[in-house]
């Protein structure tokens, strides 16, 4: 085994020339900002190559063995994007500017007429639509997240996808769609206008559809792909309407024009909140769809039908952040401290409420999931909702001119986006590692043992088949532990720093300024405790206790393609939280000198010794719920020591031992309750939507088809029949006499002529 994988490092050699492309471009004098085009184009140009070559050379030895069915080519193009992104980030940081805007290329030229009170004329205030690169602190953070995670997950996917027989000779499709998706994500982050943001947003939606439906022969995958596309499409259509409204207000969709002074519209008009707020709410509906928030959340759990790297990439780390990114882009509109439009408090409250509701709902559904990926899917939904909650509070606080608190929570929310993307990307890859190895162990067992096929009965994703993997998968178990700790918010690790800022400032807003924020604030604290429970439950069911299925007893970690990204992200998750917090990341992300949060000491002080007594109480309750109460209950229910003779390394062994030390708790009564049943059915949202569609759209379309064929076309057919019988009647006048015919023709022609001349004179 070892030798075989040692050799595979040779396969990375084709990456070397790709690494040189960006430095060469830079030496040739390409502006650092224009490297953004290279970052977008590299995967875009590689997409058709991988797809078509893979289709034509399907099964070819070199293609499969050396190029991993296009995986190496995809990785090379992502390496180009990664280096270009680093180059741009370094350039941006060296400039010490708040934003950098490159030259833009005109895409569509057109004119708009407007009425100035006396007459219609071409209005020069409306600009054309162009494309360029825009960098500010938010976009470079997301650019780093996107390029870094796309690269690592592609690396992981080479190991995950190409070792599974079911994918062989199909992987080129996977890698092609993967890099097309990456191109969409990079483009969305770098675009300098709302329209191009939307364009790349839709490209990601397409790739999400294609990748969820990768196992196209499974009916569940086909249905899930359609559901994902349709649900996000509902949001996207409203997003598009929002764009139209925004264009009408500002005469442009370019960030440079709109953000220059959001309170001034096209032609120097004053922008009114009553016009702008509906537009932003329309945009927000799009964000709700894309980021899987209540009530458009139903697609995300089903999207787990896709291969695990897809779940890691699209449905945890990158695409679902698009909605958050767009909401973060709304900040300048409401920020009355800097030319914002006054009177838009409602927007922030709506965002915060949607976030609070989704966070709580998703966490409660995650309680009862047994599929390891579904737990992570609901966890993603819940954590994204946290970020929405933070952004909503920020939007409210900024609109109400409490800019200190507003910028603080904005920075915290965006920092949570970073922490969550890193941790959740890793968690999905770790779950993929588990699924991959359990599946292979099961496969090997059947191959070597009795030959009767029970494949369909065994679900390698079901945690009830796992248990006791801690000793067999050391790297994966540590990675998953660190990821879970970051998501839970165990003090000093990853997500703790950011989640604390969100909860504290939302409470501050609720207590000091707006009682309506109290609802989301309470939900946030409850969800923190629930997160502690369901993440610990997942880890315990997978890694602690005894193997619950013979396959789990024969698992072992194998390919370095899978381990490398896990190790890398473990380090990132474990360290960057504190590291970045000490580097004023919150201020950097919110783009403002908020005057506090000066490094890690202040961050700690803000957390543990805030100035307000009430916040201190809230903070300690949150930490107690999420780090103690939730995990301990989970350990009591699902923990247990490993099988005899098995031992795990250091921290993992301690954790497993700790879980075994608690007295087990029996929850079967609760598990059979009606509430649990309702949670199993995802609170019946899917059923209700399904029922509504089957009662409205389905009969309506059937009726329309019938109406068209029988009423509208029926009238046409009636005319046909009448004219046929009419011609039968006319036939009685066919005397066969030529003179009669000439007479009739002459009379007819003359009467038509007279009619026309008479009418027209």
């Amino acid at each position, binding site marked *: 085994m070892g030798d075989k994988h040692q050799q595979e490092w040779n396969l990375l050699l084709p990456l070397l020339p790709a690494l040189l492309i960006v430095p060469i471009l830079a030496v040739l004098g390409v502006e650092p900002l224009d490297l953004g085009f290279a970052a977008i184009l590299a995967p875009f140009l590689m997409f058709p190559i991988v797809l078509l070559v893979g289709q034509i050379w399907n099964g070819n030895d070199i293609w499969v063995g050396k190029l991993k069915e296009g995986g190496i080519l995809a990785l090379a193009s992502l390496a180009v994007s990664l280096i270009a992104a680093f180059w741009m980030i370094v350039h941006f940081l060296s400039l010490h500017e708040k934003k950098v805007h490159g030259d833009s290329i005109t895409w569509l030229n057109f004119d708009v007429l407007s009425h100035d009170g006396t007459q*219609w004329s071409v209005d020069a205030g409306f600009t054309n639509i162009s494309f360029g690169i825009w960098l500010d602190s938010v976009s470079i953070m997301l650019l780093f997240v996107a390029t870094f995670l796309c690269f690592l997950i592609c690396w992981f996917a080479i190991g995950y996808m190409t070792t599974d027989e079911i994918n062989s000779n199909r992987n080129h499709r996977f890698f092609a769609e993967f890099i097309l998706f990456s191109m969409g994500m990079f483009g969305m982050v770098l675009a300098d206008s709302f329209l191009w943001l939307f364009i790349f947003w839709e490209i990601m939606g397409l790739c999400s559809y294609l990748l969820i439906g990768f196992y196209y022969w499974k009916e569940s995958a086909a249905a899930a*792909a359609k559901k994902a596309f349709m649900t996000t499409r509902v949001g996207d259509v409203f997003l598009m309407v929002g764009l139209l409204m925004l264009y009408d207000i500002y005469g442009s969709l370019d960030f440079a024009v709109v953000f220059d002074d959001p309170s001034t519209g096209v032609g120097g008009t004053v922008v009114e909140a009553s016009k702008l707020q509906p537009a932003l709410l329309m945009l927000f509906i799009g964000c709700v769809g894309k980021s899987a928030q209540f009530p458009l959340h139903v697609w995300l759990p089903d999207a787990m039908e896709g291969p695990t790297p897809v779940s890691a990439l699209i449905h945890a780390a990158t695409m679902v952040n698009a909605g958050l990114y767009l909401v973060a882009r709304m900040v300048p509109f409401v920020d009355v401290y800097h030319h914002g439009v006054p009177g838009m408090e409602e927007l922030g409250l709506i965002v915060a409420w949607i976030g609070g509701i989704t966070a709580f709902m998703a966490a409660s559904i995650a309680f009862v999931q047994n599929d390891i990926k579904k737990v992570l899917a609901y966890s993603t939904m819940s954590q994204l909702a946290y970020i929405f909650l933070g952004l909503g509070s920020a939007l409210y606080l900024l609109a109400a001119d409490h800019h200190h608190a507003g910028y603080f929570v904005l920075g915290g929310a965006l920092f949570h986006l970073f922490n969550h993307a890193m941790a959740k990307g890793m968690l999905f890859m770790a779950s993929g590692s588990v699924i991959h190895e359990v599946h292979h162990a099961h496969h090997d067992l059947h191959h070597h043992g009795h030959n009767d096929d029970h494949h369909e009965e065994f679900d390698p994703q079901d945690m009830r088949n796992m248990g006791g993997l801690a000793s067999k998968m050391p790297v994966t178990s540590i990675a998953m532990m660190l990821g879970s700790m970051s998501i839970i918010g165990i003090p000093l690790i990853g997500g703790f720093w950011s989640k604390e800022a969100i909860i504290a400032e939302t409470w501050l807003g609720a207590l000091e300024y707006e009682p309506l924020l109290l609802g989301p604030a309470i939900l946030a604290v409850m969800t923190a405790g629930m997160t502690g429970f369901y993440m610990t439950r997942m880890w315990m069911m997978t890694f602690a206790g005894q193997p619950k299925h013979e396959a789990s007893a024969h698992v072992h970690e194998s390919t370095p393609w899978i381990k490398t990204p896990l190790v890398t992200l473990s380090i990132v998750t474990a360290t960057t939280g504190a590291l970045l917090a000490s580097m004023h990341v919150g201020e950097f992300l919110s783009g403002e000198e908020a005057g506090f949060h000066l490094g890690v000491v202040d961050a700690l002080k803000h957390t543990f010794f805030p100035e307000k007594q009430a916040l201190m109480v809230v903070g300690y309750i949150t930490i107690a719920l999420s780090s103690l109460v939730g995990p301990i209950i989970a350990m009591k229910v699902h923990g247990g020591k490993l099988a005899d003779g098995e031992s795990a390394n250091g921290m993992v062994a301690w954790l497993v031992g700790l879980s075994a030390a608690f007295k087990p708790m029996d929850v079967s009564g609760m598990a059979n309750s009606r509430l649990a049943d309702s949670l199993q059915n995802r609170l019946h949202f899917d059923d209700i939507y399904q029922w509504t569609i089957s009662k409205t759209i389905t009969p309506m379309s059937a009726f329309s088809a019938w109406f068209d064929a029988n009423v509208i076309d029926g009238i*046409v057919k009636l005319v046909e029949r009448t004219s046929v019988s009419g011609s039968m009647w006319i036939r009685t006048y066919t005397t066969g006499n030529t003179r009669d015919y000439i007479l009739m023709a002459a009379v007819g022609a003359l009467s038509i002529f007279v009619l026309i001349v008479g009418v027209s004179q």
Partner: protein
Amino acid sequence: MTFTDPLSIITLVPLLSGLLLLILPNVLPQHISQRMQSSVRNVAIGLSTAVFALTTLIFLGTIGQIDWLSIGMGSFVLETEDPVWLIESIGVTWHLGADALSFPMIWLTTLLIPISMLVQWDVERGHRFHALLLIMEGALVGVFVSLDLFVFYVFWELTLVPMFFLIMIWGGEDRKYASMKFFIYTFTASVLMLVGILVMYFNTADSIFSGSLTGHHFNLVEMTEQARVSGLIASEGLRHLVWLLLLIGFATKMPSVPVHTWLPDAHVQAPTAGSMLLAGVMLKMGAYGFLRVAVAIFPESTLTFVPLLVFLGMASLVYGAVVCLGQTNLKRMVAYSSVSHMGLIFLGIATMQPIGFAGALFMMFAHGIISPLLFAVAGSFKHHYHTLEIGSMRGIAHHSPFLAGHMMLGWMGSLGLPLLAGFVAEVAIMIAFWMTFGWWVLLPAITLIFTALYYLTSMQKMIFESDDPHQGILPDTLHGEDPRDVTWHENVGMFILGALTILFGIMPFIFWDMMSVWSTEFIETYLIHAMNALEAMP
């Protein structure tokens, strides 16, 4: 009398050579005609490719050195200079010209002809089929280049003839009914349009184009100028009547609800190439004629009837999409989606905004690229699986990966995915629609959800859900054979259309710029006076 200018060549060469290729095998001796029959398709595709190359060279400016962005409203490029009399007594001239409204359509026609020939490369009785397509090309180009309403009308009706035979001879089981319905339905509507044209004719003032006998002329340029300066018809009621007559003719061709039912029947029965041309170019004749004749000459009537336009457009768009959802036949679904998309063109025109007009123009062009792709996919599906029922064949991604890929691209293009050609048109029309009609924009916007729904449902049932070639097929359609992927010529044809869909999605400005300039000038020249007058009214 010369017919050697580029526009005459691209009109007459295909027309006459098509006629020649059709007639010659019947008059020549047996052994020569048999040898000729096998080479007709080579000649036809060679000729049409040459015509396409010529059109492309005109576009690039190599021929004629044309600057498409500064033609000027009311003037035309490659225009016939002196009137060439065809019927001097009543004032019919051979008068051709192109501008930014017609040229993209001309280019599209010359592009689609060789592609549709390629897609049906090995059709039975191909020597007649490909010759008919050449005649079709001449007639279609003729509609777009002629600036004489008489010649325009002749070409307009002439397009029906080859299409009638294409459906009648090479169509499906119910071809006889469909071809007769297609012919009679659109012919009846055109006759009403002819009445309108004749009324306009009898109101023309004296000019160099006037016929020696009647003192009137059919020249469109003159008529438009006369209408702009002094109004073509004095009586307002008659103006509205003529406008409505023209609308009936054009709306039936487009087609708009409620005069659309000939289209699904014609499409389902037509051979693939016929469907491609029907959806790709023939439908656009309606929108082209509407802008060129009805809107340009009767701006006041157009403004008066804007609510009617919105109603027709909205009805086509929304109703067409909902009917699509209820279809089980692939070609019928695609046909209704054409009805739905054509509704957007009326909506774009009704906004009376330059960006809305430009969006409508680009929709004509983009739909002209995408819908032939859709019909090529549907035709290949029928060709290989002998059925058009959605869901009768599942999992074509497995046994026809190329067909599945083309289908995916075409469907996505048609539902308005960004970076594919249709999106630009949709977004432009929607921007204009919001500016003019405000929250009504939610209707077309929500229709986009329905559009996605019917396309995705059909893909789910055809591309996905199986990898067993014999699961879900109607029992007798494959006759026990294994399904195969598309043939090379179908594949090449669809690849070209797919590539163009992407190209014009990423670089719409290739044609968009001239359309946008044209739209602004058109509104400023013909409509803005009427708009100001309307606004000034209490």
